[in-house]
């Protein structure tokens, strides 16, 4: 992959800022993103494709009389296209309405350092290397059991760099790498097909374990073949990271965002320093987490990433802010502005949402469950009520735990409840922490969850 061009990106960003100010912007900010990804794809049991995508562009945000405009272009080699984007941002600001809560772009603050976010080995991976990774994973899955049918997956490497500059003197650049492999498979026996089982491994450094991904996907798919129905009742649930991610993403992750709180869309409004979860629960938003998938030195508007306590031993401590929502409350941003590359304006999002691990082995936790379920995959969490936290989802599949043993898979089991109630019913947190996109978490044990069987 081509060398990352720090100086070039910073000067492009700075030029766009200068040009916007010259053309009448009270303030201006430019954000440049470049992503180079290479991946190989698996389809139905074999590697069938490979792709290389280079996506880069510049987004410019300006304000005139407290009205904000934004424009982007992906033609950044060409000065005219950038000038055009600047003009479009200005015309958008002029067309827009003033916002009394707009108190300007962020000021410059010193950055903290981050560890293990860029690995030259990933930057230098060739498609051939990725074919090897994908093959190891695929072979591991197919050699585990004949009934495993890998339907899709692959291996990929990405080099990402971004630069941000604004009229308050911010001018920052960062780069990082990510390597990942993933596999989705079903178990097939006669006419019987299991739901899709999935595993993956993504890292900032070149230390992924494709064999484990293959074997674990296969193990889950095979064990999902034999299913029994279960009855409707309240029961204990062990939630793996996949299930947690699904349940939290559409509910808790929004409830802790300052804009949701300010706009009366958060069940946590007014509950700072109150108990919102069981004492076993501590959650940080940690944008500096060592080798975290969302670890960078600064956020989407150039504010330093930091580690923010969200819930400490069950007590709600902080919400997540970007510069706009922070200034509205006369606070400091927590460095949680996020963007879809160069294509969008900043909006609040968690960085690495870190549920701190406990000290129990996952096996110890399941072995203490007399009667319950262990949930891997959930379907339909996106239809949860994002504000109240009420959800009604289907587990595809879940496994029954009886007398401490995982006995068999279940089919079509629905779980219903409220995520905020559930947080209070967490009775144990395991020590098997792992990274799953934005979430870094271990397994957790939940009491009294409603399960609807047939």
């Amino acid at each position, binding site marked *: 992959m081509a060398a990352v061009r720090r100086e070039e990106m910073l000067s492009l960003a700075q030029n766009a800022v200068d040009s916007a100010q010259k053309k009448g912007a009270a303030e201006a900010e430019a954000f440049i993103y470049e992503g180079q990804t290479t991946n*190989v*794809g698996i389809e139905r*049991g*074999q*590697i*069938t*494709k*490979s*792709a*290389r*995508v280079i996506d*880069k*562009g510049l987004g410019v*945000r300006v304000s005139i009389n407290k*009205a904000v405009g*934004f424009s*982007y*272009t*992906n*033609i950044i080699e060409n000065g005219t296209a950038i000038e055009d*984007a600047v003009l479009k941002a200005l*015309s*958008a*600001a002029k*067309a*827009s*309405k003033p*916002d009394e*809560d707009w108190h300007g772009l962020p000021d410059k603050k010193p950055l903290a350092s981050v560890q293990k976010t860029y690995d030259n080995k990933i930057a230098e991976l060739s*498609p*051939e290397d990725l074919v090897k990774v994908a093959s190891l994973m695929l072979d591991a899955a197919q050699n585990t059991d004949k009934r495993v*049918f890998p339907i899709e997956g692959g291996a990929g490497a990405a080099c990402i760099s971004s630069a941000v500059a604004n009229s308050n003197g911010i001018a920052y650049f960062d780069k990082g790498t990510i390597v990942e492999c993933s596999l989705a498979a*079903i178990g097939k026996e006669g*006419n019987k*097909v299991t*739901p*899709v089982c999935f595993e993956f491994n993504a890292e900032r450094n070149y230390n992924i374990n494709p064999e484990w991904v293959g074997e674990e996907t296969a193990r889950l798919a095979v064990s999902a073949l034999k299913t029994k129905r279960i009855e*409707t009742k309240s029961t204990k649930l062990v939630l793996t990271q996949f299930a947690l991610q699904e349940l939290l993403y559409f509910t808790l992750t929004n409830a802790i965002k300052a804009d949701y709180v300010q*706009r*009366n*869309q958060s*069940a946590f409004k007014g509950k700072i320093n109150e108990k919102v979860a069981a004492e076993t629960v501590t959650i940080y938003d940690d944008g500096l987490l060592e080798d975290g998938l969302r670890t960078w030195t600064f956020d989407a508007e150039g504010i330093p990433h930091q580690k923010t306590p969200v819930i400490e031993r069950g007590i709600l401590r902080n919400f997540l802010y970007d510069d706009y929502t922070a200034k509205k409350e006369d606070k400091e941003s927590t460095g949680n502005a996020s963007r879809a590359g160069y294509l*969008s*304006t900043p909006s609040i999002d968690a960085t690495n949402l870190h549920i701190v691990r406990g000290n129990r082995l996952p096996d110890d936790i399941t072995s203490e469950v007399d009667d319950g379920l262990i949930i891997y995959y959930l*379907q*339909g969490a*996106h*239809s949860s*009520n994002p504000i*109240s936290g*009420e959800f*009604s989802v*289907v587990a*595809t599949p879940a496994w029954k735990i009886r007398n401490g043993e995982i006995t068999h898979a279940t089919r*079509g089991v*629905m779980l*219903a409840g409220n995520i905020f109630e559930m947080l209070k019913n967490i009775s144990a947190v395991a020590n098997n922490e792992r990274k799953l996109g934005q979430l870094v978490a271990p397994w957790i044990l939940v009491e009294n969850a*409603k399960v*609807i069987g*047939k």
Partner: protein
Amino acid sequence: MAVQKFGAKYAEARAQKLFKTMLTLKEGRVEAARQGIESGVALRVLVNGAWGFASVAASNPETLVEAVSDACKMAKTASLRLKTPIKLVEIESSEDKILSRPRKNPSEISIEDKIKTTSSINETILGYNNTIKSCTTDYLDLTGTNYFINNEGTYIEEDKLYVWSRITATAAEESLFTFSREEIGSTAGYEVFELGAPEVVGERVAKRAIEQLKAKPAKGGTFPAVLGPNVVGVFAHEAFGHLAEADLTLSGSVLLNNIGKKIASNVVTLYDDGTVNGAFGSFKYDDEGVPTRKTPLVRDGVIAGLMHNRETAQKFNAKPTGNARAEDFRVEPLIRMRNTYMEAKDHSFEELIEDVKFGYYLKSVRGGQANLDGTFQVGIQEAYEIAKGELSEPVRNASISGNTLETLFKVDAVGKDFELWAGRCEKGQTAFIAKGGPHIKVKEVIVGGSS
């Protein structure tokens, strides 16, 4: 060049220039008004039976030559361990130029006007009553042109035009929060916002959020249900449609062993149709240069076909259906739905509910998802109890689940009305689609509720 120098069996290039305008209004406050330009080229080649793909932003000749060679090398590398080479079904080549002729072209409407329209939706909602706590309106319009060319002589220029808006509102009373959402989408033009549409939609969204405040939680269990067009659409799309995307069928969806067989009650006929005028999922040619069409999926309860790209059509020995779609030049085309719906029959709404002693009327969805084994889940944002053949009290946060094929056999009556709803579908990429149908009655479905 791909063919001559690298021995590609097939090569295509897709170039795009897209213009977007986006707005987000929160409680009437305009967040940054946004406009952008994207342009780029996607190259896809088939070498030694494997796909190679490269996407670049620039269109200068040197970069393109490099990208072609990249794509071919990528394909060769991918083919190293190939057991079954990919083949494409033959199609007639076409040369065509499709111009969009909207009555109101969004690119000729000022941002001020667009802000005015979205503001009026906000005002309607916020002004409805004081239990409404927030309102977000997102607006997007996209215009531009797709250029498609392949080594078989196909050359197509097709204009793209999409206008879309999503409106969400929340209401609260004491500690109860409710939530309501709706989408508008059209490929016809900005005229979708005429006819008092902003006010009508705003009122509907506000009313739904407020009504849920006095609604009770749904009971969990198995009940008869009448589904509204919005729910039938999501069922047709999520629960059935994805299983009939031929790539997913081949991946082991429950339809694989059922092609040509009866999988639903006689009253069920389903289509995926790219030809509905102005609908959000309509277009003329797909991203492999195949003309779109009206594709029957289920006819009178029997599987009539699947949705194909050229690769799966070859595998199934079927005609390509024009379902290969790519979100933009950054990604490869995948099999995607267009406008997916159930065909209307003969029942009135009253006839559908009159025999239900106790059950639910599920009117509007919050989202849905299906699995290859046919397990589906559809979250409901607007529902009512049906008691003794009549509509009764509102119910909140219900969802339905079950097995798609079992549920299709339980459809015992289909209404005579019809609605199509705009939406977006995620399959690694976003596609603009529509879904719909008439009201239908289902003998039983699992309702997930918390009471």
